[in-house]
């Protein structure tokens, strides 16, 4: 039974919070990879989109660890805030992605379902991260730093090639950022819960 001695100590343990967050971030990254691959195969073959997608993520202004050494040197509070910032930066674009995907010609239901599922689960993960940050350093809900997104007009362009590139770029960037979030959370979980001995 949970909470054997009543409500004063009754909360989800930090270990369980991280367990659920990592499971969710893994799931979200899997979905985003599938969605990107599906879109890439169906709409991007031979269009050279990858070359144009360089330096084009709205979150590239956020400083994030780019290799193992950086990720292990950063203080865990800062890494938690990085995760929060990246997650918050995707609330707005994911919301618009769901509505705009429906306007893509013959967009398969699987891409639409994934976009809706990702938007839902990303909100859920953000709720969990705010809970974790509140638990790890109480009183500080993490700096409200995040990157604003101004890509909606490009998702609605009349020219199909430009519009498809805008979708490609958004999915490419989200696949990357969801992979970062998943990786950072697994590092944090091992560091904070398993004393770096996973």
């Amino acid at each position, binding site marked *: 039974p949970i909470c054997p001695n009543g409500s004063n100590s009754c*909360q989800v343990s930090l270990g369980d919070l991280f367990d*659920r967050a990592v*499971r969710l971030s893994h799931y979200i990254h899997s979905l985003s990879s599938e969605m990107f691959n599906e879109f890439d195969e169906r709409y991007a073959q031979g269009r050279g989109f990858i070359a144009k997608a360089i330096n084009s993520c709205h979150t590239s202004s956020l400083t994030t660890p780019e290799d193992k050494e950086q990720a292990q040197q950063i203080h865990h509070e800062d890494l938690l805030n990085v995760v929060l910032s990246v997650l918050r930066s995707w609330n707005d674009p994911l919301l618009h992605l769901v509505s705009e995907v429906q306007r893509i010609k013959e967009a398969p239901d699987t891409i639409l379902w994934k976009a809706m599922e990702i938007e839902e689960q990303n909100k859920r993960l953000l709720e*969990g991260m705010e809970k974790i940050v509140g638990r790890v350093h109480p009183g500080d809900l993490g700096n409200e730093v995040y990157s604003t997104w101004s890509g909606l007009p490009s998702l609605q362009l009349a020219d199909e090639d430009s519009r498809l590139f805008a979708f490609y770029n958004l999915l490419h960037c989200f696949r990357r950022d969801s992979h970062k979030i998943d990786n950072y959370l697994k590092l944090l979980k091992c560091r904070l819960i398993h004393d770096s001995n996973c």
Partner: protein
Amino acid sequence: NGQPPGKPEMIRCRSPEKETFTCWWKPGSDGGLPTNYTLLYTKEREESYHECPDYVTGGPNSCYFDQKHTSVWTIYNMTVKATNALGSNISTPYYVDVAYIVEPNPPVNLTLEWVGQAYASYLLLKWVPPPRADVRSGWLTLEYELRIRPKEEPEWDNIFVGLGTKYQLFRLNPGIKYVAQVRCRSDRGEWSQWSSESHFQVPKEFKLKD
């Protein structure tokens, strides 16, 4: 005449897929008077009380929490209050962590196929996760357990399978009719009900390798 209502009691909560959940209570005596029930809950570290969002979907004496009202990040502390003209009575607090009340629906499409190999023929059992379970990549990781018995015998033989959705069963007796079922659980929750039964007759003449 009549009495104040007896003390109701929260009895069970269940989530099929860690995204929604339902709780049930057992009413106390209604004191011979029309009695109504109110379920109130707070979430961890929150002062404010919320009322049950949906008394209908889960059937009588129940409260259904849809996705919007379901959080895996917090513990729910809930009580149910019975009220009639002569007074009211409140259940003892009941704590719920959604991750620990997951009881999936049973797996479906259990198929049994005989694979005759020169060396070791076997029965290949295959099944599919329950619908609506977002299991593909781990948000809800399901483990499976099989049970099988000769049709004429009462005793089941249970086989824990783990994550896979297929199983090879060697050493079955030729000519015998077998019955099989499968169930699943989320790694922290309750076992689902058993799936419906599947039947299979092992061929008579296959050569049993010594």
